[in-house]
């Protein structure tokens, strides 16, 4: 385990979503919990780390309203915390609606909800900033952000 990880509950506790009371709160919390598991899941996917071995990057990933700041070093997520972090720069952001993440992580995602760029095309996600690290490692990001798929449906049910 690499230093800098927050436990799923800690990530949620840092996030204003925790204080919201709405019908979508359960989905929002489940999405944040799932994001918090990504660094550890990545540690269990050495082939993905190898694919990202030339990648050092600060980026925002997560739900549209409450993204997480990810620090990636040599393909590993060495820090993942609620954004914004005071005066910490980032190069690109990929943010999607909580409903989009929940759909993306289904074991058999529905058509149009099954790919990061399908989500941007349908307006459920947005890519912003300097896209270069995202595009040079496009399959890496698709696969890293799909890591919760194996657990999400079970956890959310």
């Amino acid at each position, binding site marked *: 385990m690499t230093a800098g990880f927050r436990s799923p509950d800690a990530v949620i506790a840092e996030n204003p979503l925790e204080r919201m009371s709405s019908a979508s709160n359960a989905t929002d919390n489940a999405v944040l919990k799932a994001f918090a598991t990504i660094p550890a899941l990545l540690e269990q996917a050495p082939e993905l780390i190898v694919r990202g071995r030339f990648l050092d990057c600060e980026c925002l990933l997560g739900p549209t309203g409450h993204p997480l700041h990810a620090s990636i070093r040599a393909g590993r997520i060495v820090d993942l915390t609620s954004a914004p972090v005071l005066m910490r720069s980032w190069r690109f952001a990929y943010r999607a609606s909580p409903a989009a993440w929940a759909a993306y992580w289904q074991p058999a995602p529905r*058509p149009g909800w099954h790919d990061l760029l399908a989500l941007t095309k349908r307006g459920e996600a947005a890519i912003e900033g300097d896209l270069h690290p995202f595009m*040079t490692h496009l399959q890496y990001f698709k696969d890293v952000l799909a890591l919760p798929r194996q657990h999400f449906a079970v956890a959310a049910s």
Partner: protein
Amino acid sequence: MSGYVEPMIGRYVHVDIGAEMHRIYFEENGTGIPLVCLHTAGSDARQWRHLLADAEFAKHFRIIAFDMPWHGKSNPPASWNGDEYQLTTARYTETIRAFCKALKLDKPVVMGCSIGGRIVLNLAIDHAAEFRALIGLEAADFQAPWYDTTWLNRPDVHGGEVCAALVSGLIAPQGPQAARTETLWGYKQGGPGVFKGDLYFYRVDGDLRGRVENIDTDVCPLFLLTGEYDFSCTPEDTKRTAAAIRGAHVTIMEQLGHFPMSENPEQFRRYIAPVLAQIVASAKVTA
């Protein structure tokens, strides 16, 4: 089984395209109605290997798949000096017609996928009488762009990796992993700028809105089949296109994406077999 030799045979045919001889690689199998298969942008005719090897289809069709110039084993022409490659509607149409003429094919069926599906619509508009039937996979008169093609060919981004990663999402998740990986391998092997150059036809030069209404399916039947997971050419794009063409047949294919013939050959066969059977039946009636 070690030692098994697949039935298709690959050869080169010299084809006059634009007053210059091109050495075009093609593979074929079977006898009967010529069935010419067109690969997607940035890939090559290996996408059709399962259809080419299909013993049932080969009883009724001479199945042929060729690599477009700059793709697969069809090199760029001798006159190419390294300039940016750009496929145009006119050039693409001319290439297909010249290939069919060079092989002396009598009223072939043409089946194309993606850009191949788009050009099939153009063949239906301008040259329908030359063909027995036309089949467009993942075909529409126009599709909304969903990425900037300049990412496909620049020195600071690996072309093979980014091309494959972009199209990976167009494949349905239900396909066999090996077939999905093989489909992406075709994109990883494309020449620099070739995928981008093909998309010049797709994005800039090949907008057929307002023209497909002129297709006469009494002259040449038209079949359009699109995978439900294709978010580039969506089922809605195909249905909108077909709605403007009297007599066009439309099928939305479940558990398939933008590369049906290669990403999940068995699933694709369920949908294409009835279409090919209908073409065979029509040929018998005509004869």
